[in-house]
C-alpha cells in the first residue's frame, strides 16, 4: 500500500484488449459509503447472513466472491479486497440479490461504486472502449456509427425493401421528423451488422400507422458508460439523447428491443435531474396494446408443428424498472404469437428471473469463462423448458443466450419479437430470417 492508501493490483484477466499498466486502485471505505448511498432506514448491518442473495446469484463463487461475502467483508472493513476484486465486473448489477433480500439490502450500488473507482486503464477494456465510442459521435453508438452513416444505412435498406417487396413499396423510415409522436431508438447492432433486422420493426410501425421517427442524433440504444462506472460519461450520453428528443418535440421516447437502454435513460433522467419533455416507454407495451386493439392481427395458426417457445425477462426492464406488468405484456404477446399451448414459462420468471449473464457489460468485458459459468444457470432454465426458441426483447440477453446455448450444447434458437410478429403476419422478408432455425423456415416455404 502506498502513502495514499492505494494498492497495486493486477487487472482482471482479459482475453482481448490492450495491455494494462500497473496503475493504482484507491481504497474505498465501503461501510462509510454505504451509509451515504443507502436510503434512510436501510443498513448493511441489518444483514442476517441468511444467504438468500448468494443462493440466488449466478455470480456466486466466481472470483471466490458472492453477495453475502461482499457485505460481510464490507462490515469487517476488508476494503482493500473489495476495492480490487474483479468480481465487480462479473456482477451484472441485476439486483436479484436485492429482490430476494428480506432486509431489502441493495448491493448493486456498492458494485457500481467499486466499478467507478477503478482507473480507466484497469477496467475491462471492452466496456471502456464501447463507452468511448458512444461519446465519440452524436449518434451515441457504442459501435461508433456516425449520424451520416446511420442516415445512409436506413435509407439504403428502405430503398431496397421498397424495390424488392411490393407490399411495402410505400414503407417509411422517417428521419429527424419534427413533432413525430414516437422517437424510436435502435441498437447499433442492426444498422452496423445486420441492417435487414430493422425492417420487421418498420413494417410493424407501417401496419399500425404509427407516427414515428428516427433521429440522426442520439438514436443509439446502448450505454456502456453506465456499466463502466463512469458517471460523467453516463450523464453526457443521456443528456445528448434527451436533447435530441426534446429538439424533435416527440411525445414518447420509444425503447425498442434493448434492455439496458431503457434503464440507463430512465435512471439517468432521474439521477441527473434532466428536463425530459416526453414519456419513456417500451415497445413491448405497444406490441401488447396494438394486438389488443386489433392493429396487429397476429395469430398462432402458422405454428402447425407446435414449436415450443419460452420468454426471457430482461432484468433491466422487468425487475429493475417496470416490474411484472411488462412481463405480463411479454407473455400476452408471446401467447398470441405462438399459441397458449406452445408457451412454456422459464422458472423462475418475471421479477424473480435470473440474469442471463450478458448484462452489466459482461459480454464486452472479455471474461468469457466467467461469463459462461454465470450463464450456466440460464442454460439450465432454458433446458428445463424444453423450448426450441427463446423470445427476448434485449440484445445482450439475445447474444448471451445464443453463446451459452452453443457452449453447453443446447438445441434452441433466440429470436426477436419483431421477427415473430412479422412471421405470424406473413410479411417476413427473405433477408429478415437470420434467427430462424430450419423448423421455422420450413413453415415459411
Amino acid at each position, binding site marked *: 500500500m502506498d502513502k495514499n492508501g492505494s494498492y497495486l493490483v493486477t487487472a482482471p484477466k482479459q482475453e482481448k484488449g490492450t495491455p494494462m499498466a500497473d496503475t493504482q486502485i484507491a481504497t474505498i471505505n465501503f461501510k462509510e459509503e454505504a451509509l451515504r448511498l443507502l436510503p434512510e432506514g436501510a443498513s448493511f448491518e441489518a444483514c*442476517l447472513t*441468511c*444467504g*438468500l442473495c*448468494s*443462493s*440466488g446469484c449466478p455470480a*456466486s*463463487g*466466481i472470483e*471466490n466472491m*458472492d453477495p453475502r461475502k461482499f457485505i460481510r467483508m464490507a462490515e469487517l472493513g476488508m476494503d482493500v479486497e473489495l476495492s480490487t476484486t474483479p468480481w465487480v465486473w462479473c456482477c451484472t448489477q441485476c439486483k436479484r440479490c436485492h*429482490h*430476494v*433480500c*428480506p432486509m*431489502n439490502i441493495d448491493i448493486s450500488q456498492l458494485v457500481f461504486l467499486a466499478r467507478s473507482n477503478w482507473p480507466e486503464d484497469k477496467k475491462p477494456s471492452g466496456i471502456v472502449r464501447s463507452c468511448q465510442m458512444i461519446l465519440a459521435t452524436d449518434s451515441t453508438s457504442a459501435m461508433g456509427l456516425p449520424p451520416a452513416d446511420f442516415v445512409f444505412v436506413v435509407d439504403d435498406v428502405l430503398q431496397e425493401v421498397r424495390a424488392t417487396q411490393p407490399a411495402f413499396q410505400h414503407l417509411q423510415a422517417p428521419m429527424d421528423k419534427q413533432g413525430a409522436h414516437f422517437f424510436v431508438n435502435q441498437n447499433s447492432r442492426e444498422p452496423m451488422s445486420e441492417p435487414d433486422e430493422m425492417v420487421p420493426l418498420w413494417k410493424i410501425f407501417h401496419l399500425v400507422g404509427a407516427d414515428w421517427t428516427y433521429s440522426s442524433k442520439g438514436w443509439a440504444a446502448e450505454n456502456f458508460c453506465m456499466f463502466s462506472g463512469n458517471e460523467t460519461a453516463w450523464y453526457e450520453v443521456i443528456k445528448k439523447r434527451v436533447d435530441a428528443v426534446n429538439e424533435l418535440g416527440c411525445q414518447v421516447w420509444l425503447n425498442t428491443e434493448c434492455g439496458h437502454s431503457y434503464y440507463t435513460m430512465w435512471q439517468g*433522467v*432521474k439521477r441527473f435531474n*434532466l428536463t*425530459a419533455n*416526453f*414519456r*419513456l416507454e417500451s415497445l413491448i407495451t405497444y406490441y401488447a396494446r396494438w394486438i389488443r386493439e386489433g392493429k396487429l392481427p397476429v395469430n398462432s395458426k402458422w405454428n402447425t408443428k407446435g414449436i415450443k417457445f419460452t420468454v426471457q425477462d430482461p432484468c433491466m426492464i422487468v*425487475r*429493475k*424498472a*417496470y*416490474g*411484472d*406488468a411488462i412481463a*405480463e405484456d411479454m407473455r400476452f404477446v408471446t401467447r398470441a404469437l405462438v399459441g397458449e399451448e406452445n408457451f412454456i*414459462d422459464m*422458472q*423462475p*420468471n*418475471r*421479477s*424473480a428471473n435470473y440474469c442471463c449473464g450478458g448484462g452489466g457489460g459482461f459480454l464486452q468485458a472479455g471474461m468469457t469463462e466467467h461469463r459462461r*459459468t454465470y450463464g*450456466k*444457470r440460464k442454460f*439450465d*432454465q432454458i*433446458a*428445463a423448458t424444453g423450448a426450441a426458441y427463446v423470445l427476448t426483447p434485449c440484445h445482450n440477453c439475445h447474444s448471451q443466450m445464443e453463446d451459452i446455448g452453443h457452449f453447453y450444447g443446447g438445441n434452441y434458437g433466440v429470436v426477436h419479437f419483431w421477427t415473430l410478429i412479422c412471421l405470424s403476419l406473413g410479411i417476413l422478408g427473405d433477408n429478415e430470417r437470420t434467427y430462424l432455425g430450419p423448423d421455422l423456415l420450413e413453415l415459411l416455404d
Partner: protein
Amino acid sequence: MKEETRNFTTQLAIIGSGIAGFAASIFAVNRKIATAQIGNTGAVAYTTGYLDLLGKMDGAQAAVNDPWQALEQLRKSQSNHPLSRVAVADIHRGFNEFTAFLGECGIAYSQPEKRNITALTPVGTLKQTLCVPATMAAGPRAFAAKKPCVIIDFIGLKGFSGRQVVANLQDRWPNLGTQRIAFPDMVHGEIYPEVMARALEVPATREKLAYTLKNAAGQAKVIGLPAILGMHCPDHVRAELERLTGLEIFEIPTMPPSVPGIRLRELFEQVLPKKGVTLIPQQKVTALDFDDRGATLSLFDSYGPIRIQAQTVILATGRFLSGGLEAHPDGIREHLLDLPVTQPADRTHWYHDRYTDPRGHAIHRAGIEIDDTFRPLRLDGRPYSDRLFAAGIIIAHQDWIRGRSGAGIAIATAFRAVAEAERYLLAETNPEKRV
C-alpha cells in the same frame, strides 16, 4: 419527466407476504373477494416446508402428539392465545383449504390428520408437525418403520451433513447410514440447494444424479436427500428420480436458504396473479389511512408511486424480522399505524439471562391486541377501524417458535380475518344485513 401514480381499487388489501399474508390471499381468492397483496419478501423463504399447528405446550416436557386435543387445553390455559380465538373446526378447514390449494398449484401436501407427524429436522433431530410436503413424506414413514436407509449429502453443500443426521438418529434408527457424493456439473466450491434444485429440473442432470445415487444407496432401498428435488415441480422431479433409481426417495429440510420456502414463495408469486390477485411483492406499504369510504395504501415500487383504495385491510406484517414490529430503546412499536403493542414493561424484561431459558422470553409474546372479530384495538379498547383486521404473528400472546405453531397461527388467523373481512364487505354491499 413526470412520475405518474398508478391507482388500484380492491375489496381487500392484504399487507404482508409471509405465510399469513399468502394464506389470506388464498382464502380471499376462494371466496371471490377482489384482493391486492403487498409486502416485502417475507420470512416465508426460511420455512422448512413443514406446516406446524401446535407441537409443544408451555411447560410440558413431551411434544404434542394430538394437536387438536392440545388446542382444547390451550383454550383453557391461554384463552387470549390467537389459536384459542379460532374455532377448532375453522382451523381444520383452514389447513384443508390451504394444503389443497398448494396441491392444485403444484406442490402436493399431506392433509391434516388426527395426530402430528414425527418429522426429521435438518440436523437429524425430530419435531412434531401437522402437514408435510409429499416430497418429504417418505422420511417419517421410513423412520417409523426403521427401514434401512442412506442419507446423502453433497461435496460443497454447507448446512446439511449426513454424518450429523446419522449421529443424532442412530440410537433410534439403527439401519441408517450416510454417503457424500458430488453433484453433477457443479464446478464451484460452495454449492447451494437452490441451484441444485433448479438443475434437477433438467432431465439430463437427473439422469446423471440417478446413476450416482444408485451406487451410493448400496443395499438400502430408501434414501434421504437434502431438499433439492426441483423448485417448481418437486413431485415430478422426485417421481422421475425414483423411476430412474428404483429407490424410495425423500427430502429433509436444510438450513436457510432452503428450497421448500423458495418453492412456496415462487408458487404464490406466480399463481396468485393468475387467479386475479393484484400482487405487489418485495415492497413495503409506506402509509395506510382510513376514512369513511375505505382505506388508502401508499407505496413505491421500482417504477414509481402506487396508491391502492381498499374497502377492507388485513394487517399481516409479522413481527421483527418482517418489520411489522420495531424494537426501539423506549419500547416496541407497530410500524405502520402505531397500534399499541402489548409488551414487557421495559427492556430489562425482554429477555431472561439465558437464551435457552425454559420459560421462554417475554419479548416473543409481544404483539397487537385484537377483538373477537380480529380487529386491532386502540389503547381504549375500541377497534382502530371497522375495516381493519389482523392475521399472523403480529398478534400478541403467542410464542410461535416455542410452540412450534408458526404456520398454525398464520393459517388459522388468516382464515378468521378473511371471514371477518368478507362479513364486513357483505354488510357494506347490503346495509340491511349489517350486524
